[in-house]
Each structure stands twice: as C-alpha cells, then as structure tokens.
C-alpha cells in the first residue's frame, strides 16, 4: 500500500485502519474493541463496506463502493492494518486476541472476550461483485473500442442496428462478459490469432473473445473457437473464397478429443441440428468473427452490401460445429486418422453444407451398405460431374455398427467407396442421356474419381436409433478451392 493520493489511499499515514461490514458477527463482536482502540493515542480509522453508520460512534468512512477494500486487497473482515510513514507494515484478519494485542501494543485489549473468532468474507471478493470491481478499479487489459449506450438504447437493438448479428439475437459483449470469456484460455488477450478475410485484418484473442460472447459461447468453448479461427483463416482452407462463392457451403467444424465431452458438446441425437449450446454457438462464433472482424457479410441479406455472394447459402452457414461420436465408433477418431496422437483435442474444418439424407434400412452387411452410401454420394452436386466438389459422409451409429462388427475401419470404408466411385467417363460426358451438363468430351474413354483426393471425409456421429447416414455436400476441393485443415485445440486452462 502506498501513501499516494488516490481517492482510495488510506486517510492516515500512521496508526490503524480497520475494515468491517455490519453483516458480519465477528465485526459486531470487535466493535467494542475498536471503540477501546479509538481511546488510545494512536489514530484509528474504520472503513465500512455495507452500513455507513456501523460501527456506531466511530465515525466510519463509507466504503460501500468497495474501492478502498479492492485497492487494499481486503479478503476478510474485520481486517486490521498497521500504517507507519504511509506504508502498511502489518495486518491481521478476523479476531485473534494475541495478534490484535501484539499489533496494537495494547496489552489488555479485548480482555474478557473469547480469544478467537474467524472473520467473514470481504464484500470486495464476493464472486457476484468481484468482476465488476476488477473492471471498475483494475487496469483493464481490454483494448477494444468502447461503445457507450444511451439510457434509452436497447442493447439488443444496438447489436442489430450496427450490423453485428447474423439475424439472430446476440449476447451484448460487456467488459464483464469478455473478461469472463478470456478466462477460458491461457493465451494473452493481445495474442494475434489469424488474419481474417475478406479485409485481411489481423485479429487478437480479445477480439475473438468479444465475438464468442456475442455468439453465446461459454468461456470453456473459447479454445475451440480460437482453433476454429486458425483452422479456417489460412490459404489452405481458403475462408476467403468459401465466403465469397455463389455456392452453398460454409465452414463446418468437427471436434475430436476429450474436450468435446468436457464442454458438453453433443455427438448424438440432433448432432447436426438444434438443442446444444456448444454445438450451436462455436460455429456461430467463427461466422461472427468473419462477419465482424473480417468484414465478410452476406450480400444484401440485411439490406447491406457484402462479399458473400451465396446464391442461397444454407442454414448451416449460421454455424455448423459438432463432435465426432468417438466412444462406439467403427473408426479411430478423425483427427487420429489425420495424423494426431490419440485423445488430442482438435478441430477439423471442412467446407460444406447440408445435411442431406442417406436411407438404407435393409442392409446388414458392409458390402451392401457401402453400395448404398456410394450410390447416394455419386449424385452429390450432379451425377454427371466429378473431381469438382467434395463431400463429408456422416455415418450414423446404426450404420456404423455394421462396419464395426465387420471390422471395417475408416481406411477400408474410404477405399471401398472410392473404388465404387471411380466413374467411367463415357456415360457422364456432356450431352449423354440428353443432359447437356457433364464431363468435357476430352475425358472420353477414361475413368475419374468422383471426389478429388483429400476432398472426401468420413465421420461417425448421431443418435442411437435410425438406419440413416448423411452427406454434407462440399465445395470445390483441392488447392484451387478448400483443403480440410485439422488444428490442435491448445491453451486450455487446467
């Protein structure tokens, strides 16, 4: 403690300061002791946290804004501080008769009272007010521009008016909420995360955290959001092109590793649908980062111009994030098959949209089932086009069981589907079957794969019942479009 002249500096330079609150039996208990101390020749000042008239007769200083308590790290009441030359030289908390006598030098202080009473919690460390005090009195680490709302402004409407939202309400990003969000990562708030298209703005952990608040995330989701931003905003994934395209796709995020359960994600029923906060808000946070920090808005959707030229878009562009159902999967976790150690927390970003359904309720052998899956995948985009758009196959658990019981892992399923989707070009050339669309005539007499290598992923997710799987249609694959990227989720507080 220093003797500088802040409004929360001690009002004396030598003597004692007691910090109390009326709503504390120990403080009431020591009130007569303080009265005795006030009669001695060393000055005593009492600060009171709740009732400015307590303790009566001691002319207490009003600390109901808790400024003195916060600045002087008061954690317990009563706290007795000793000042010498404007500097705190000792303190004691609660009531311990020996310590009080030693500190005050009054040998018979508290005579006849019980020797010990524990103190109570200081209001300044009450969890319901401490974050506000940190914002009010602390040196804020937050550098985002502040927007002060007028009394009559509705904070939800402000978010819409300023174009911060995707059309749904957002959580207003107050300093308190952003500070709480930042506790979700061990990364420094000013750490640069990525360069966000289309404006190619460098963004920091703090700026991503503000948008994670906006999206409705809890702090423990933040490491996943940060990894998602890193996985998508790079040249391989090509978030810029994915945003700008007339096609339907957006970034799809697939989470692997124990973090999915730890933060309460849903890999089961409605995995691609509604009802789970983490699933719903993590993907949304990424989209809001691109919207608000990259300047990537859907053209005309809210009457404002934008570079997202999607012809129709898809509901999944609000945000699509889900964990793989790892526990009874026929496959190793997706991230493991993509080269990460087992149980690594990762986000895999893939360009896509959807889902569309694959129905097969009769197959009981992997050979039959794989034929069904391949037949539907063959028509993705157009049955006469190949090597263009990618796809992600989401194998439902009842289909997955057939593969698991047959011992077919992801590589096997992949290979079997690829083999069935090695297409003869002649039946799908332009003009064949009276359909102008198709492969160019130069490819006549060849075979081509339906999906460009690396543009077809397989994951396992969904509820317990339903003999279905799903296709998440993809965008242009490969180096001229979007390459799936897996990024480790790091900096998770222990």
């Amino acid at each position, binding site marked *: 403690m220093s003797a500088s002249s802040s409004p929360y500096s001690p009002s004396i330079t030598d003597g004692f300061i007691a910090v109390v609150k009326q709503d504390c039996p120990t403080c009431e208990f020591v009130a007569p002791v303080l009265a005795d101390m006030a009669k001695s020749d060393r000055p005593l000042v009492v600060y009171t946290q709740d009732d400015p008239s307590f303790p009566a007769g001691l002319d207490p200083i009003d600390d109901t804004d808790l400024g003195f308590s916060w600045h002087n790290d008061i954690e317990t009441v009563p706290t007795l501080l000793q000042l010498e030359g404007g500097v705190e030289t000792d303190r004691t908390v609660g009531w311990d008769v020996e310590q009080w006598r030693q500190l005050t030098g009054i040998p018979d202080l508290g005579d006849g009272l019980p020797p010990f009473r524990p103190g109570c919690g200081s209001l300044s460390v009450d969890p319901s007010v401490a974050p506000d005090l940190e914002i009010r009195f602390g040196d804020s680490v937050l550098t985002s521009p502040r*927007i002060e709302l007028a009394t009559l402004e509705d904070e939800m409407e402000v978010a819409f008016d300023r174009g911060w939202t995707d059309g749904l309400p957002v959580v207003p990003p107050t300093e308190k909420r952003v500070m709480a969000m930042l506790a979700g990562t061990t990364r420094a708030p000013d750490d640069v995360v990525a360069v966000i298209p289309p404006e190619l703005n460098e*963004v920091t952990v703090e700026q991503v955290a503000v948008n994670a608040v906006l999206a409705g995330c809890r702090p423990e989701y933040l490491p996943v959001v940060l990894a998602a931003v890193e996985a998508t905003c790079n040249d391989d994934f090509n978030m810029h092109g994915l945003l700008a395209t007339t096609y339907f796709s957006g970034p799809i995020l697939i989470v692997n590793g124990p973090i999915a359960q730890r933060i309460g994600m849903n890999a089961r029923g409605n995995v691609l649908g509604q009802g789970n906060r983490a699933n719903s808000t993590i993907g949304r946070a990424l989209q809001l980062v691109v919207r608000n920090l990259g300047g990537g808005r859907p053209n005309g959707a809210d009457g404002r111009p934008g570079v997202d030229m999607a012809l129709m878009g898809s509901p999944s562009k609000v945000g699509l994030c889900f964990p793989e159902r790892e526990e009874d999967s026929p496959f190793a976790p997706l991230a493991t098959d993509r080269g990460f150690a087992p149980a690594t927390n990762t986000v895999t970003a893939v360009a896509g949209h959807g889902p569309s359904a694959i129905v097969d309720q009769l197959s009981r052998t992997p050979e039959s089932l794989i034929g069904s899956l391949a037949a539907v995948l063959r028509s993705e985009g157009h049955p006469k086009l190949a090597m263009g758009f990618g796809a992600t196959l989401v194998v439902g658990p009842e289909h997955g069981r057939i593969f698991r019981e047959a011992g077919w892992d992801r590589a096997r399923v992949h290979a079997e589907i690829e083999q069935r989707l090695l297409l003869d070009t002649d039946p799908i050339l332009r003009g064949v079957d009276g359909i102008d669309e198709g492969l160019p005539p130069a490819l006549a007499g060849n075979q081509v794969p339906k999906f460009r290598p690396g543009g077809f992923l397989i994951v396992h997710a969904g509820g317990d019942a339903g003999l279905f799987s799903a296709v998440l249609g993809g965008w242009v694959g490969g180096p*001229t479009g979007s390459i799936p990227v897996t990024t480790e989720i790091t900096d998770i507080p222990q």
Partner: protein
Amino acid sequence: MTILLDPTAGRQKLSIEPVPRPASLAGLTVGLLDISKPRGDVFLNRLAERLTAAGATVATYKKPTFTKPAPVDLRQQIATECDAVIEALAD
C-alpha cells in the same frame, strides 16, 4: 450506463483513391485480368479487340484460381504495367 466492446474492433477500412479517369484510351495500356472462370477468355478477347481498336495497348493477366484473391505480386505487376484497369465482376 451500459458499455459494450465493439466486436468489429473499430475496423479501419483502407481507402485508396483510384487514378483519375483518362479522357481517352489512345496510347494507354489497359489491363484485363482473367479470373480463370470457364469462357472468361471469350469475353475478354472481345474486349481486347474493342480496346485495341480504340488505340489502347492491351495487357492480359490471369489469376491462378477464381476462388482466391489475386496474388500480391500479380496485383503489383498490373499496377506497374498498366495505365488503366477495367474493373468488373461477372459470373
């Protein structure tokens, strides 16, 4: 009073003034950028004919892929070599 943190981080837009519109194309080099979409060349070749007839020299460039922004070096090359660029977007 409610204070919110700006989720756009007060994004500063970089604003670059285009060069003044030339009165005539005669003697100027005009750049055409093929973004690598199918049949873009048909359209651009016709434009080149018209521009040449108007006395301009036409320089043509091509992006590696339509899905990504033009590489910085290519943009710099166009800026260095051309007096005017026809900027338009079609699909």
